[in-house]
């Protein structure tokens, strides 16, 4: 049943909120209450996370991919020059990223088991681990045993987005390749939880389907995971479809106001979850959304393998919108009385 204004008011007045409240807060009826949601979201975020912002940066290791995804620049049927970084090239990128001040790096690849599989990741981790305090990864779903191997090598976080929870449409967007297996992807956070990963990032690709429905399923997934793998931390990301080479236009256009509503709904219902925003979003949006519940952001990102030092012209996965450097973002944060935090983890943690 459609949520009404009374459901929104009830959700706002409760001390502890549940998934029914989440539904109310993402419903069209909540739009009129957005100022109140924003104020509450700001207060709760400040209480829990303080006046700080975690900073991270992606390191694209490869754009090789055997999947066909209708919305992605790395899609197999997209005839682009493919590139996978060698060990020496990885080190060059690492050096460039370290110069920017980062201690938290997010490793990204397409899905190409033969060339960019677990063995490649293990070698990459060996090279990268000594240079960073925290290592995240956004790659194809793997088996539990494979995650266990990577965790033992120092992997701290895995981001795995379901893209959409709409099973039939998921198949439409992923017609070929290993990624077409909806259930295998859906069960990835379980395998990660069983492997004892420190943090899991969840999300959907906003624009593929109705964002309210997809985000509700993400919230349901998150609530289940929090109870089942209670020692694992969780983060939510909000990727909106962005233009790319050979691209699909979003089926559903989510505007800025709706994205703010979604961010606030997460904060009000999941007070302790980390919320992350990428450089897909515009400068103006990012400058303002940090006060509304966001706790982590990337800055100075390149979304192509070798983009920092090795091959700055290779094809990017998507166009970034906020092109400011890491130090410019840090200055912006300081002007807003936020402390940019580059290091919030240590190699000593989570690997024993």
């Amino acid at each position, binding site marked *: 049943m459609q949520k009404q204004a009374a459901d929104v008011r009830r959700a706002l007045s409760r001390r502890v909120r549940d998934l029914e409240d989440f539904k109310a807060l993402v419903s069209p009826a909540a739009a009129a209450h957005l100022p109140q949601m924003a104020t509450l979201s700001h207060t709760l975020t*400040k*209480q*829990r*996370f*303080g*006046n*700080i912002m975690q900073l991270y940066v992606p390191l694209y290791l490869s754009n090789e991919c055997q999947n066909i995804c209708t919305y992605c620049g790395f899609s197999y049927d997209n005839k682009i020059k493919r590139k996978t970084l060698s060990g020496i090239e990885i080190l060059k990128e690492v050096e460039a990223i370290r110069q920017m001040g980062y201690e938290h790096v997010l490793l990204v690849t397409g899905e190409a088991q033969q060339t960019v599989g677990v063995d490649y990741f293990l070698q990459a981790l060996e090279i990268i681990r000594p240079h960073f*305090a925290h290592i995240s990864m956004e790659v194809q779903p793997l088996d539990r045993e494979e995650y266990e191997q990577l965790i033992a090598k120092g992997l701290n976080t895995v981001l795995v987005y379901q893209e959409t929870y709409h099973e039939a449409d998921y198949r439409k967007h992923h017609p070929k390749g290993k990624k077409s297996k909806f259930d295998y992807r859906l069960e990835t956070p379980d395998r990660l939880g069983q492997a004892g990963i420190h943090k899991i990032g969840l999300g959907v690709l906003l624009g593929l389907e109705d964002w309210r429905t997809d985000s509700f399923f993400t919230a349901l997934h998150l609530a289940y995971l*929090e109870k089942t793998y*209670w*020692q*694992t*931390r969780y983060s939510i990301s909000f990727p909106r479809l962005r233009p790319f080479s050979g691209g699909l236009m979003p089926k559903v256009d989510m505007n800025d106001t709706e994205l703010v509503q979604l961010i606030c709904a997460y904060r009000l219902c999941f007070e*302790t979850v980390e919320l992350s925003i990428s450089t897909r979003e515009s400068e103006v949006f990012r400058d303002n959304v940090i006060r509304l519940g966001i706790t982590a952001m990337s800055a100075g990102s390149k979304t192509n393998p070798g983009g920092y030092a090795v091959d700055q012209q290779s094809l990017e996965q998507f166009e970034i919108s906020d092109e400011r450097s890491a130090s410019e973002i840090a200055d912006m944060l*300081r002007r807003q*009385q*936020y*402390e940019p*935090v580059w*290091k*919030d*983890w*240590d190699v*000593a*943690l*989570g*690997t*024993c």
Partner: protein
Amino acid sequence: MEPLVIAGRTFTSRLFTGTGKFSATSVMEAALLASGTELVTVALKRVNMQQPEQDDMLSHVEHPGIHLLPNTSGVRTAKEAVYAAQLAREALETNWLKLEIHPDPKYLLPDPIETLLAAEELVKQGFVVLPYIHADPVLCKRLEDVGVAAVMPLGSPIGSNKGLRTIDFLEIIIGQSKVPVVIDAGIGAPSDAAKAMELGADAVLVNTAIAVSRDPVLMAAAFKQAVIAGREAYEAGLGMVAQTAQATSPLLSFLNPVS
């Protein structure tokens, strides 16, 4: 106000503080100084352990009279805690340690079993261990038995500012502890800190309530005064709270037969 002694070190301030959640390290530094604190906890996960001399936060904590208390926030097991403690001791050149093992990332509630195991091992390795724990009186005695330097029971969940929700258990802990009791986590207002000190706590540790206030420096000064007031009231001896009027009980009237 009597000085406090923990593991042979004397503190004239009974207000311990933290370093998280501040909007800038300069604000943190000013708040630390305004609080008068002599013991400041820092999360080793935030510190540059390879080159601590270049760490921005540490440089703002370094003041004469302020001692560092590294904490193991982020570890989930006793094994991880011991490893992290060893690294912290080497990098920060102190054997003092706030032992925090909270495998639950949501409410950051401490694991009593892993904490006891880690405390026992760390004491053997020569650390001055101050464990962060639930307000569990039996656990406090078990930790005391393995040789911790103080116990740090929580008032309410970390960062919640809810105050002393565990007061009944804190009273028991204070009543039976042979080591100093530092109430940590949940203290949200100077009145909470004063209350903790009036109960007989040896010290309090406050972070969020100072760091996220509108004026952290002023709030730090307010906490300083509250802790002094609470401690002095405790030392002066609070009067008894009368629950009933002091009339002759009719139960005893038979002792004075009506003449």
